[in-house]
């Protein structure tokens, strides 16, 4: 039986010895995260795939408007060691571009299309990456960018139900609770015969 | 002749009313089995009349014509059914092979119409229906031919009379192996659960019926009720000794159909290749063994 804590540590030493890692996070027993520079991603994924991380679990992005950066996240998984590895890299936000990892993981085709649709990242080398996948006929900036306002979009595109004002009029009526309290006070007063 | 025709149409109508009621009662029974209250016993009538009251879309004349051909073909088949010994429209024309051929007219009408709709699921459903038919017909025919060889007649009412004359020696008892095959084939013919591959609502969206709505679907439901009536009555006449009067027929009919739907309630659906493999493996083997020991060895109980 292999010890998975050791597996994670092994991965950290292995990767840090080969690549120039900006930041390493040992998130849990089964999860390790590396932040690397953009140019290292391809060779790193290639290396990890050859060492057993052969499943690309997810590919997505995070928008950081304060830093003016877009962060790409690749998650790969090893079925033998049970360790997820996240590889993160920050790219330019205004003009987000990345080379596709299609030659390494062919399954990234749809993830890249999704990332292009929701974040506007262009993946060079993926012929389908500009095609629409989930949003059909989208006519605004990519919706998962932080500067997109979903409420304004929703109000502009979808009719909102307008409610009549009856609720407010009802609220202006005399409160039944006050009446009830007054009645109860009167009953108490009568019961006590006017005595305190 | 005209009178016989009307009589035959009357038999088809009788079959429709009978089978729709029995199927409705069976829906109630299976509801009770699943600890539900179940629908009204006349729910199937309500469904059919509702469908007839709706507006329908057409997909071209083949689509409409095929439905009429299916219903007409099945009514024409049902006209020849001997319900009891005396309750039959054409006394000399109730040969088994008439049913075997005429029932195909209705089925082909439905296949033509479903293919005319242009929906790929309908084509898959029709293909599966024909494949299932091919699977269960061969063992079933072997058993029927055995019976015809033993009795020397292929008239349905003649076979029923033969069983009654021999002291109610029903073929379900006399040829037990063959009866098993016939029950399996009947379940496949009725589209009951383990062999329900061509309807498969969750898989191919009710197969051949996928594009029908409104009046055409109502007509196809009527056609299916009459088809089931034909198949169950043939079984009653071939294996349960027919009926001397109408009450015996009703009892036998209800018993057969209810038993089959009870069996089908506990099964899941086969895949189409499993259906074909199943029928070509065990029922075919059993049918041939039954034919051999009945005809060449003469071992009939």
């Amino acid at each position, binding site marked *: 039986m292999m010890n998975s804590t050791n597996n994670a540590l092994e991965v950290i030493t292995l990767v840090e010895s080969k690549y120039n890692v900006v930041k390493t996070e040992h998130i849990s027993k089964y999860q390790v995260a590396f932040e690397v520079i953009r140019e290292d991603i391809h060779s790193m994924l290639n290396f990890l795939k050859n060492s057993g991380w052969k499943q690309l679990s997810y590919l997505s992005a995070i928008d950081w408007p304060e830093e003016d950066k877009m962060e790409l996240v690749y998650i790969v998984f090893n079925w033998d060691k049970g360790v997820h590895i996240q590889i993160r890299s920050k790219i330019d936000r205004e003009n987000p571009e990345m080379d596709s990892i299609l030659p390494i993981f062919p399954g990234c085709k749809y993830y890249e299309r999704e990332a292009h649709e929701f974040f506007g990242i262009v993946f060079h080398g993926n012929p389908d990456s500009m095609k629409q996948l989930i949003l*059909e006929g989208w006519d605004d900036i990519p919706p998962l960018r932080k500067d997109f306002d979903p409420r304004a979009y929703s109000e502009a595109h979808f009719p909102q139900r307008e409610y009549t004002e009856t609720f407010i009029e009802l609220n202006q009526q005399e409160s039944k609770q006050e009446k009830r309290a007054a009645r109860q006070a009167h009953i108490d007063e009568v019961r006590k015969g006017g005595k305190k | 002749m005209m009178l016989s025709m009307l009589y035959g149409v009357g038999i088809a109508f009788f079959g429709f009313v009978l089978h729709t009621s029995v199927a409705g009662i069976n829906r109630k029974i299976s509801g009770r089995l699943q600890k539900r209250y179940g629908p009204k016993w006349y729910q199937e009538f309500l469904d059919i009349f509702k469908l007839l009251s709706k507006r329908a879309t057409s997909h071209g004349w083949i689509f409409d014509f095929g439905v009429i051909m299916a219903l007409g073909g099945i009514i024409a088949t049902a006209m020849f059914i001997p319900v009891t010994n005396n309750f039959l429209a054409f006394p000399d024309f109730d040969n088994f092979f008439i049913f075997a051929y005429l029932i195909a007219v209705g089925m082909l009408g439905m296949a033509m119409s479903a293919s005319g709709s242009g929906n790929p699921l309908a084509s898959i459903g029709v293909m599966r229906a024909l494949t299932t038919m091919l699977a269960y017909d061969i063992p079933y025919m072997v058993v029927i031919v055995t019976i015809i060889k033993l009795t020397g007649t292929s008239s349905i009412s003649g076979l029923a009379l033969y069983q009654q004359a021999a002291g109610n020696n029903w073929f379900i008892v006399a040829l037990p192996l063959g009866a098993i095959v016939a029950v399996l084939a009947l379940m496949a013919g009725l589209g009951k659960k383990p062999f329900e591959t061509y309807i498969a609502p969750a898989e191919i969206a009710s197969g051949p019926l996928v594009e029908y709505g409104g009046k055409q679907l109502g007509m196809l439901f009527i056609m299916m009720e009459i088809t089931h009536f034909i198949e169950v009555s043939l079984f009653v006449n071939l294996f349960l000794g027919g009926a001397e009067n109408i009450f015996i027929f009703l009892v036998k009919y209800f018993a057969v159909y209810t038993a089959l739907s009870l069996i089908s309630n506990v099964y899941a659906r086969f895949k189409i290749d499993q259906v074909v493999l199943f029928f070509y493996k065990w029922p075919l083997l059993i049918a041939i063994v039954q034919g051999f020991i009945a005809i060449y060895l003469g071992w009939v109980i």
Partner: protein
Amino acid sequence: MKSTKFSELSQEQVDRKWWEIGDFFRRNSLWMLMYCTGCCAIELPPAMTSAYDMERLGMGPMATPRQADILLVSGYLSLKTLRRLIYTYEQMSEPKYVVGLGSCTINGGIYHDSHAVINQLDQYVPVDVYVAGCMPNTEAVMNGFVDLMDAIKHKTANGWKKYRDNYDWYRQNQIASLGEVEVHDEFHE
């Protein structure tokens, strides 16, 4: 000997009588097409199985839009599903009814400010019965179906007529929100 006198019925009266007979069958045999896009769909299994047993009212699930009478929209609709929903609704054979489950179909519910989810279903297809709640409990769902049966009996469930008469208005709303109703993707071409 007296013979019974029948007063002459006009064509309209005869049509109405036939329509009432048809309504009797239609309200006792409602087949649903369950468009389970949202979480309210989880209320349907108890409604169908032995707890509440929808089949005793003559209702049941159907596999295709052509065969169904009710289009049951359970929960939120994204733009992508709304296109398919309109396709489905237009394929159903008349008379057809729409039941909207949950507050998402009424005013957007908890997705009222989402970029992908519409807020008001009855702007795009006519809705006959709404069942409010997030999510409505099963009694409320059953009550909604009984309400629909009452509405059919009293001839107030005529959303399908409204859709046919005001087709331009509905179409305009659909185009305003969706841009284009027709589906264009690699799987359809």
